[in-house]
């Protein structure tokens, strides 16, 4: 099985290599920006206008199943900026619809960036490898809605729903899930929320999540969250900014050095295409250089 995977990876690499040439390098521009620029990043901040963009080609993830057989998003633009202590990466791509709901047959728009912990030559761009972890920062449209105070509730998807009662719920109809289920007994009716699954947070503060992985199926939320983010959809384009301190002391985080070079990988999901999990578009390692402070 492993051997077949490597063969597929090798063939894929040969086939896709010409397409990847357009993404030569991402330059992280130095600017003397306040910490607030990174801590509360604004995707449409005028600062970004002057930053050069690098276009990256995206490929359908078809190395492991489940996957995509053809891409749902083919390119994305990348910009990056740092102030010597923090770095931000802006990712934008065309998406005709703002899909931010999830349900059985609905998925949310999303994107992610990935850094190696030990160096790009030491691990795989495909979710890392055993003992060679990667650090991932994941942004989702539905999380963006969460932080905007619009946690997806039942009436958002089914406006005409009527339920006689919810056991242990407090407050008034329609018993918003964010306010009516605060007792232990009420929480107990919300399985993964009750057990504090990181995917099921009623009161999310930031729309991004920091994760780590050591291969397919190992994606795990980091115990300490250092990243920030923000995403805006406007006129058919998502613009998402990820921001993080260059050095955090967290062993699960990448060490980014001013003047140094590392690699970065990208993933984009189109909710309207029902992309989720491994059904995504990706760009494997692209070199990224943090400009020296002049």
């Amino acid at each position: 099985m492993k051997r077949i995977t490597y063969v597929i990876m090798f063939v894929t690499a040969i086939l896709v290599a010409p397409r990847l040439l357009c993404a030569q390098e991402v330059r992280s521009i130095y600017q003397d920006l306040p910490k607030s620029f990174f801590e509360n990043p604004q995707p449409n901040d005028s600062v970004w206008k002057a930053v050069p963009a690098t276009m990256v080609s995206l490929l359908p993830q078809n190395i492991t199943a489940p996957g995509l057989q053809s891409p749902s998003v083919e390119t994305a633009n990348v910009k990056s900026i740092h102030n010597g202590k923090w770095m931000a990466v802006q990712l934008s791509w065309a998406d005709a619809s703002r899909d931010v709901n999830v349900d059985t047959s609905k998925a949310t728009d999303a994107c992610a960036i990935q850094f190696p912990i030990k160096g790009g030559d030491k691990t795989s761009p495909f979710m890392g490898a055993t003992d060679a972890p990667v650090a991932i920062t994941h942004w989702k449209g539905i999380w963006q809605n969460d932080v905007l105070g619009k946690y997806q509730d039942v009436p958002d998807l089914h406006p005409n729903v009527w339920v006689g009662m919810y056991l242990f719920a407090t407050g008034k109809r329609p018993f918003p899930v964010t306010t009516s289920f605060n007792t232990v007994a009420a929480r107990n009716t919300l399985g993964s929320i009750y057990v504090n699954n990181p995917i099921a947070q009623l009161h999310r503060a930031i729309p991004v999540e920091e994760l780590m992985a050591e291969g397919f199926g190992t994606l795990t939320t980091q115990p300490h969250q250092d990243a920030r983010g923000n995403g805006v959809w406007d006129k058919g384009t998502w613009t998402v900014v990820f921001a993080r301190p260059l050095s955090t002391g967290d062993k699960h985080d990448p060490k980014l050095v001013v003047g140094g070079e590392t690699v970065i990988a990208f993933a984009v999901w189109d909710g309207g295409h029902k992309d989720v999990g491994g059904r995504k578009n990706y760009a494997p390692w692209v070199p990224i250089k943090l400009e020296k402070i002049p």
Partner: protein
Amino acid sequence: MSEVKNWHLNRLMQYPYDEKRPNKQLAYVFDTNKCIACQTCTVACKTTWTSGKGQEGMFWNNVETKPYGGYPAAWDVKLLNKMGPQEWDGDLYTGQTIFESQDAGERVNGHMPETEDYAYPNLGVDEISGVVDRGAFFQGAHNVWMYYLARICNHCTYPGCLAACPRKAIYKREQDGVVLIDQSRCRGYKECVKACPYKKTFFNMVTRTSEKCIGCYPLLEQGEQPRCVQTCIGKIRMAGWLSKPGEERQDNPIDYLVRIKKVALPLYPQYGTEPNVYYIPPVHVPKEFLWEMFGPGAEDAIAQYRAIRNDPKMMAAMVLFGNTPKIITRYVSDAKYSIGYNEKDEEVVRVPLIEPFFERDMFDPIKNVYRHNTA
């Protein structure tokens, strides 16, 4: 892919993981001939496990009317259609399973229901198979048919949901074979929802993770049968432990009905998951429909069922249904009684093979009334 033995298909089949049967396997027998679709099981399950927000349209247990009913809508015909015609050669399945026919980029051959498909759990209820001819009247057998199919998670030996989860968030318990979704590990990819051929994993729009029937494992751990079994007023259900193939025991009622008499059959065995809810097929339904739904053993099962009076052991197993909340691991019968024992070999139930018959005087002198019916 590994090669695993599937005794429903009488052959080896492909599965992403090695064959590893649990120490005990939870299994159920449902007698479709006795189900009246009262939905007591559905409500018992609903109030016990899925009363929370985001679970409004979620029924871990449902009872639907065949041939037209289905929850979620068209769950079975969609997959049958997608799989296309498949064949049995006697009791050997020569067609493909859901683990052998998937498209590139998929782990399992499945389909994702639409959100709306869960909105009408009673769709098709009580609808009969065709129109009643003008002038037709009842002559002892109806010329149209329908029947009730009670459905829960099959706690499959080779679960489609487990095979599909890229995160290994789904596991099958060693101690009882119950299939569970780890609520702290699930990231809501819904691959299990797409893969389960029975559509018994569900996505919760509020918690953003998938959920499923847990076989009432807190009850199992106390030696009791699940809620849907305990509450069944039609006494159509029994839950217990099915032995590994080749280790079946005559005195285990589940083994006797499923493995020895083969009177109870798996639902859509051709999908290859080795489901562990076994159905006694409805006796009045055309054999072609039953072959498709329960496999090639359907006619034999009905013949066994009809001949129950000649088989005191089967009679004794069947009267134990619905008469105790406890799990029966061994049973014996004498001329009068069927007696069930639990794991500690304590007697938990004693049921007369034939209900006692009382004849009362026509006049009740205490209440000073005549007892009579209006006929």
